[in-house]
């Protein structure tokens, strides 16, 4: 990673909250932060790819929502759930949901590369379409059941880390959920593909200078189309795990994830103009976001003021990034 400003921001925030609150700097809370980040993290992986090519995807949260609802739609629901759904076997439901995410990604990719709609507009339309899918499938109801694998990965515990004994003298553990493992897997795989594969090199080169890539005989449309599909698939997986994590599938449940995911990528230092940044930056960005969100809950301030403060902190982080970048380029 070339830009260390986001790391400094992160350290400064951790130090600040540690002094401001006695409950912030604990192992327990550290894992809390990571747990809270894992769904956003999966979305942010796909979004990093998109932003590296200098495109944007505004439909990530809506797609996550729609795919989470889709997988529930194909699962038997308890009696009290009043949805005219179509139950299938678990693995079929998961495959259908993944196919739906693939289809959404392909439509977005086609709109951008074949028809030539700017990604900002195309994904705005896709956001509306995905929200429409969600609305039609649940019709204002809430679904509670998912295929077993989704429930496990979304809300199950993978293993427990022993941390000695608690006040009552019993052995204490920190549970590590499967979502954290899945998120880590996405981050690691995302990083390896970007840094070590031919495809990853194409992404950076297309983002760095699209025209030059095209005049070098790179299939720019294929690269851009493919990152949109990857992003939709990441959102889809995040959506399935998300509904299990929340314990319910309903409309507008993921609304805050759009800004969180974009903020994580950009605050981490990946350039919106493409070609600079990567998963390493996104991890730092996620942590900054997680520390801000979590830290603010640990200090005593007006909860309505928190929303504003959160925005201001993110703005400050972005400003610091830009200045650090300018400093480096001129120096």
């Amino acid at each position: 990673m070339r830009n260390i400003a986001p790391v400094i921001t992160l350290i400064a925030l951790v130090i600040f909250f540690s002094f401001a609150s006695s409950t912030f700097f604990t192992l327990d809370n550290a894992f809390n932060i990571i747990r809270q980040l894992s769904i956003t993290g999966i979305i942010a992986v796909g979004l990093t790819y998109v932003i590296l090519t200098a495109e944007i995807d505004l439909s990530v949260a809506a797609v996550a929502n729609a795919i989470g609802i889709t997988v529930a739609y194909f699962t038997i629901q308890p009696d009290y759930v009043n949805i005219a759904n179509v139950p299938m076997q678990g693995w079929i439901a998961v495959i259908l949901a993944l196919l739906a995410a693939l289809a959404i990604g392909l439509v977005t990719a086609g709109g951008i590369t074949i028809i030539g709609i700017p990604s900002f507009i195309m994904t705005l339309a896709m956001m509306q379409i995905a929200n429409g899918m969600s609305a039609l499938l649940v019709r204002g109801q809430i679904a509670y059941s998912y295929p077993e694998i989704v429930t496990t990965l979304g809300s199950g515990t993978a293993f427990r880390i022993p941390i000695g004994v608690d006040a009552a003298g019993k052995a204490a553990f920190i549970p590590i959920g499967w979502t954290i493992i899945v998120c880590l897997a996405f981050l690691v795989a995302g990083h390896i593909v970007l840094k070590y594969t031919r495809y990853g090199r194409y992404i950076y080169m297309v983002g760095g200078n699209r025209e030059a890539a095209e005049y070098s005989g790179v299939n720019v449309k294929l690269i851009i189309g493919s990152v949109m599909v990857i992003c939709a698939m990441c959102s889809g997986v995040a959506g399935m795990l998300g509904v299990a994590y929340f314990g319910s599938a309903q409309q507008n449940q993921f609304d805050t994830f759009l800004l969180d995911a974009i903020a994580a990528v950009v605050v981490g230092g990946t350039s919106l103009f493409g070609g600079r940044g990567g998963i390493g930056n996104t991890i730092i960005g996620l942590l900054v976001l997680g520390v801000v969100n979590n830290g603010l809950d640990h200090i005593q301030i007006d909860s309505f003021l928190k929303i504003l403060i959160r925005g201001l902190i993110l703005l400050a982080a972005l400003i610091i990034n830009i200045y650090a970048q300018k400093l480096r380029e001129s120096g």
Partner: protein
Amino acid sequence: MTDEQSGRGGAPPLLELTGVSKSFGGVTALRDVDFTLYPGEIHGLVGENGAGKSTMMKIIAGVHHDFEGVMKIRGVETRLRSARDALASSIGMVHQELSIVPELSVAENVFLGKQPLTTLGIVDWPRMNREAKALIASLGLDIDPAAAMGTLPVGLQQLVELSRVLFSGAQIIILDEPTSALSPPEIRQLFDVLRRLRSEGRSIIFISHFLDDVLAISDRVTVFRNGKKVITDETRKLTKDAVIAHMIGRGSIDMHMGEDAMLAGDDSKPVVLSLENVGDGRTLHDFSIELRAGEITGVYGFMGSGQIELARALFGKLPLRRGSVKLDGKPVRFRSTAGARKAGIAFLPENRQMMLFRTEPVFKNVSIAILDRIHRLLVKPAEEKRITEGHIKDLQIRPPRTEIALGSLSGGNQQKVALAKWLTHLPKVLVLSEPTRGMDVGAKEDVIRIVKSLRDKGVAILVLSAEPETILTLADRVTVMKKGTVARQFSSGKIEKADLLAAA
């Protein structure tokens, strides 16, 4: 010093630089250079690519401010901090790499940041267009002020940028390679404008590789070599031979290079690519040509005659609507540049920036076009660097380093890197648009040598140029292009520059 004595009528210098040195990291671009500019003079500046001309001018125009030495404007020691500073000292520069906004209209580009406003505070479009048109017309040009800048040929974009500099009221006007992209009538117009500016008492620094142009227009000439000033003298005391000798620091070369040529078209060589009556529905129509293995086919024509479109169509960037294209006898249609590349077509556009990644290291610039042939799934930078080192050696790219950012190379070396992209696995067809434009004698010779050696290896080469010299030094056959179609073809015997000019 003859320098000081040649002041016009004893007027004090307008601009005076003494002992200027400048380095970029480890690369020394300028070493202890002195330079003076008098009011009302046109000062020609020549030197091979990388000699430091642009760097010197960027110092004068306030782009580079951390340099050693002293700069005096009207006798007052000054250090400019920015282009805005320079403008305040009435210094304006038209850069070699244009700084226009292609999406904006011509008028908006002329008035960039200084649009005339109505009393309501909104942009006064009619007035802006009117004034832009008048300003451009004063340069002898007829350009629609509402046209998008990006749709104009590069040469005209440069003139529009010049009109912006003039509009700002600059007294010292720096032109870095303004004639590279201009056709002869446009150059004549530009020269008329420069003479008029001189008669108004403004001073002009004029950089060009066209020594004839420089000798024709300037009052004095300065020659740079390797970051040092070799000589400043009055133009009437210099000959082209003498200037070249100063530039390259060795004996003069054949002065008649590119004045005429013996064509050697050989019909027994196999046709690799043939176009039959192709058209793009706009500029190109009924154009036919055959490219043979081991031959260089030259296409000559003034700017705007359709060469740009032809080159793009061949590389899958511009769709052809009519006619047929055959590669090795089989009909083909390229839907993307990737498709053309995979079929064995390689392309070097006239503006090398279009295919280079300035901030990326040299080796990534070279390897991007061959990644799919050297890597399966994972990238192996060591392999890419090894291949790049081979090209650096063969093409004598300077500095010989694979890891430095491409943007820090000089123009000629950037062009060699652009060419190197296509040399690892020889293409069937190599399309070169203005392969030597804006290059000095030395780099030009290198590129010509490389292109000829590719021909001898059996590549079918198409060279498109608006410079007759380029066509005559390279081509085995020549097609003259006019208004998007074939005007005349030459395949054997002797042809002269005049033949080309007459046919175009």
